[in-house]
């Protein structure tokens, strides 16, 4: 059974979702138990793969329906004819993010989403969202990636509109699916151009025969634009505040995870699909591409944080911070891309480019953890006061000690204060980007300071101040599941912050190596 792990990771949530009409009738306790078990099993399977894949650098293939599934191609032919799943260190890294985020988010949502008939639909869609994100992480087939992208975006849109009684929630869902559909149409166009030239959909095969023609660059434009649109980087970030603000708190966290996975996929397409291959003649100009990514990143950072400073709505504020944090990752990886194929034989890449990429990729993981924690605590705040407006919140620190502590942890982590995990990845980015271009590093630090200021505002206005029990709408204590979700994320933030070496050496460094290795 061990060599079937890749397909089990994707199909287990699918089965659980398909059986929801049955388990949903059997009572919500059983249903929650089943889902938590499935998500725990998923995490277990993912961590089972860590010794083989991340530490020893093996690559696991799974060919659907073939007589020998662990082979990449069938005997006698040089190209894969079936759908292939591929687990290398980078996709495992993506999968671990998804696994941890879905587990904690579902634990949180057991206590916060109202338990009624529609909750069954909620958990079905949640499981399908998980399956879509897992499929996006592990598939090695462009069209299959498209299918899973659609699964995640449709379930995301439906979940954004979950609270239909709110005035604007359906419109936010509409906006999300509109953007997603445009993005997936562009993506499919890029896939079609790749297929027209090489007659295949397999990422690894296309990369091995890539000719770096003009059409490839057009295809790359389409695919990168689509991915950036879904990830919410700056020119296409208009949908982010509306959707993140109107969705339930746990779904905002899931949308954030979806953005992270899309970003990872964008990096994977940049390197593994359109990266340098052995056969190609005219290479893609990596320096230009890197600078484009860097400019997008800096714009995202700056616009995101300046827009966040003036917000009075806690969720919109956090959504703009999500845009701003995306900028850090784009900056780190962009510096890596810019020096990736420089003419100095990879000296600059070894000197600081790889470190910048490690910083950027590490920041994806850290950001997924602390941003989720912040979104979840904002859910608690919204629930307590019945509003998202910061002017209507005061003195929550007197009531909810746990929420206060975890919000503090998340806010300090996002601002890059030691000893939390945001500090480690931001330090890596600052150091390496400073060697590339000092101005960029200074901008990044400035944005970090503004982030701290913005979160101090939130903390001061909602947690400090006199105790006002008359403003509290919902005073029931948090359930065990909600607390467990918050505590797990906070513990992960502190552990990653205290021992960054283990994570970087164990997961991040192999992931970057797998991403940038030249076939």
């Amino acid at each position, binding site marked *: 059974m061990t060599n079937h792990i890749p397909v089990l990771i994707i199909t287990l949530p699918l089965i659980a979702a398909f059986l929801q009409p049955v388990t949903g009738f059997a009572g919500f306790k059983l249903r929650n138990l089943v889902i938590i078990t499935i998500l725990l099993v998923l995490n277990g399977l993912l961590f089972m793969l860590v010794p083989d894949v991340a530490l020893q650098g093996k690559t696991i293939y799974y060919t659907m329906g073939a007589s020998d599934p662990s082979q990449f191609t069938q005997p006698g032919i040089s190209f894969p004819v079936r759908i292939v799943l591929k687990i290398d260190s980078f996709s495992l890294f993506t999968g671990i993010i998804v696994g941890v985020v879905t587990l904690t988010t579902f634990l949180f949502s057991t206590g916060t989403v109202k338990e009624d008939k529609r909750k069954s639909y909620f958990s079905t869609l949640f499981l399908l969202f998980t399956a879509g994100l897992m499929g996006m992480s592990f598939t090695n087939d462009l069209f299959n990636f498209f299918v899973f992208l659609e699964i995640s975006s449709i379930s995301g849109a439906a979940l954004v509109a979950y609270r239909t009684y709110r005035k604007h929630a*359906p419109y936010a869902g509409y906006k999300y699916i509109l953007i997603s*559909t*445009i993005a997936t149409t562009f993506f499919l166009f890029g896939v*079609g151009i790749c297929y027209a030239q090489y007659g295949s959909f397999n990422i690894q095969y296309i990369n091995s025969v890539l000719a770096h023609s003009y059409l490839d660059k057009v295809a790359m434009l389409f695919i990168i634009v689509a991915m950036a649109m879904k990830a919410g980087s700056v020119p296409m970030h208009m949908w982010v505040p*509306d959707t993140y603000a109107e969705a339930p708190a746990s779904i905002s966290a899931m949308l954030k995870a979806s953005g992270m996975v899309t970003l990872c996929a964008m990096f994977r397409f940049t390197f593994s699909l359109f990266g340098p291959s052995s056969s190609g003649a005219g290479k893609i100009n990596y320096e230009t591409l890197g600078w484009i990514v860097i400019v997008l990143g800096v714009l995202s950072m700056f616009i995101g944080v300046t827009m966040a400073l003036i917000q009075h709505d806690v969720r919109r504020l956090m959504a703009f911070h999500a845009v701003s944090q995306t900028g850090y990752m784009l900056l780190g990886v962009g510096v890596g891309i810019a020096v990736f194929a420089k003419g100095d034989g990879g000296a600059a890449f070894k000197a600081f480019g790889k470190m910048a990429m490690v910083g950027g990729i590490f920041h994806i993981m850290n950001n997924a953890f602390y941003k989720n924690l912040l979104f979840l605590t904002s859910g608690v705040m919204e629930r307590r006061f019945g*509003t998202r407006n910061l002017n209507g919140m005061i003195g929550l620190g007197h009531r909810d000690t746990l929420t206060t502590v975890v919000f503090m942890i998340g806010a300090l982590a996002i601002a890059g204060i030691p000893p939390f995990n945001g500090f480690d990845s931001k330090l890596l980015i600052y150091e390496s980007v400073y060697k590339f271009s000092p101005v960029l590093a200074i901008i990044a630090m400035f944005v970090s300071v503004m982030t701290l200021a913005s979160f101090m505002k939130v903390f001061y206005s909602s947690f400090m101040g006199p105790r006002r029990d008359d403003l509290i709408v919902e005073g029931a204590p948090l359930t065990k599941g909600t607390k467990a979700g918050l505590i797990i994320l906070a513990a992960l933030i502190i552990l990653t912050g205290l021992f960054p070496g283990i994570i970087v050496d164990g997961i991040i460094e192999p992931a970057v190596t797998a991403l940038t290795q030249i076939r």
Partner: protein
Amino acid sequence: MLSIFLYVTVVSLLILSITSVIYKRNLIKLVIALNIAESSVNLFFITLAYRPDSTAPIFTLAPALQELRMVLPSPQALILTNIVIGFATTALMLVLAVITYKNNGTLDIRKLKGVEDHD
């Protein structure tokens, strides 16, 4: 030049649909625009699969094996998938538009701009 005409149609449809996404304000019309974009992608794939003087890739009642030429099968399978996904997206968007109309009393994007005001 005539043979490239199909590709020109594909690109024109895509540009048409994206332009109407930018300029139209009615939620239902946006759905129609996205459907046009999806049709353009479907046409693109079907164009890639075409071979002259070929039959559909079905052996039941096909001509004899020696003179058999068939069009490429996998783009057809893919656009089958894409059509179903497009149907799903369209249905969900229409439902969201209906509920938006019930909540706000309008389908005009300009009047729906008040998303940012909380509560």
